[in-house]
C-alpha cells in the first residue's frame, strides 16, 4: 500500500495505491491518526488504484469517521473501482460514508 498526499488549501487529497488488508491497513491508520490531518476540513480519498479492501481497511475508516465528523471534517471517497465499492455495499457502509464517482463530484460535495 502506497499513500500519497496532495494538499490544496484546506483540502487533503489522499491517493491510495495497492491493497488494504490486515497487514497493510496499519499504514493507513497511521496516516489518518496523524494530528496534522485535523487542520484540514476536507479529506478526499482517491481510490482509483485501490485494488482491494478487506474488513481491516474498512475498520480503519469506520474507526475515524466519528472523530472527523465531530471536527466537521468531510471525508469523501471518489474514483472507487466497482469491486471495491461492492465491499462497502455488502455491509451498508456506502450509506454511512460519502462515495462519489469522480474528483469533480468530490470537490462539489466538499464545498457544499
Amino acid at each position: 500500500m502506497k499513500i500519497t498526499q496532495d494538499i490544496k488549501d484546506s483540502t487533503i487529497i489522499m491517493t491510495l495505491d495497492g491493497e488494504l488488508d490486515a497487514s497493510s491497513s496499519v499504514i493507513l491508520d497511521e496516516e489518518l491518526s496523524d494530528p496534522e490531518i485535523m487542520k484540514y476540513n476536507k479529506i478526499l480519498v482517491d481510490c482509483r488504484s485501490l485494488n482491494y479492501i478487506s474488513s481491516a481497511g474498512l475498520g480503519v475508516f469506520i474507526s475515524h469517521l466519528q472523530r472527523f465528523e465531530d471536527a466537521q471534517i468531510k471525508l469523501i471517497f471518489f474514483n472507487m473501482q466497482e469491486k471495491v465499492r461492492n465491499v462497502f455495499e455488502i455491509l451498508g457502509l456506502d450509506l454511512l460514508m460519502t462515495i462519489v464517482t469522480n474528483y469533480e463530484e468530490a470537490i462539489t460535495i466538499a464545498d457544499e
Partner: protein
Amino acid sequence: MNNSIRVNCTKKNLKQIRDFVSEYLGQLALSDILVNQIVLAVDEICANLIIHANHEDPTKYIYLTITEPKNAVQFEITDNGLAFKSTDYKEPDLHEYVRMGKKGGVGIALVKRIMDKVEFTSKDGANACLLYKKIK
C-alpha cells in the same frame, strides 16, 4: 491445477493466499465482483486464524484446500490454533461501531453475507473452517 497451499502465520502471507485463490478462480469464468467477494471471504478467515487463533506465530501454519462440488466452489481452511467460538459471534451494529471508533469486527459479517455456507468445526486441537459458494 494445484488446489492447496500452506502458509505460516504472518499477516504478510495473506497476499499470497489471495493470489492463490484469484488464480484458481481465474479458470472458472466468474465476474470480477464475484471473484473479489470470494477472495475476500477466504482472506477474512485466514486473517482471523493468523492473528487471533495463532497470534501471528511464524512457527505455526494454516492450510487451504479448494474443491469444486457440483456448481459450487468450496474452501477448507485448517489450523491447530485456538478454536473459533461461533457462539461469540454477534451481527455488527455499524452505527455503534462508528460511535465507538471501533476498528475490528466486520470480517465475519462479510464472510457470512458472501458465502452460502460457513461452518467451523474443532476436534482434538485441529480446527477446520468450511466455506461454500454456489457459482451457477
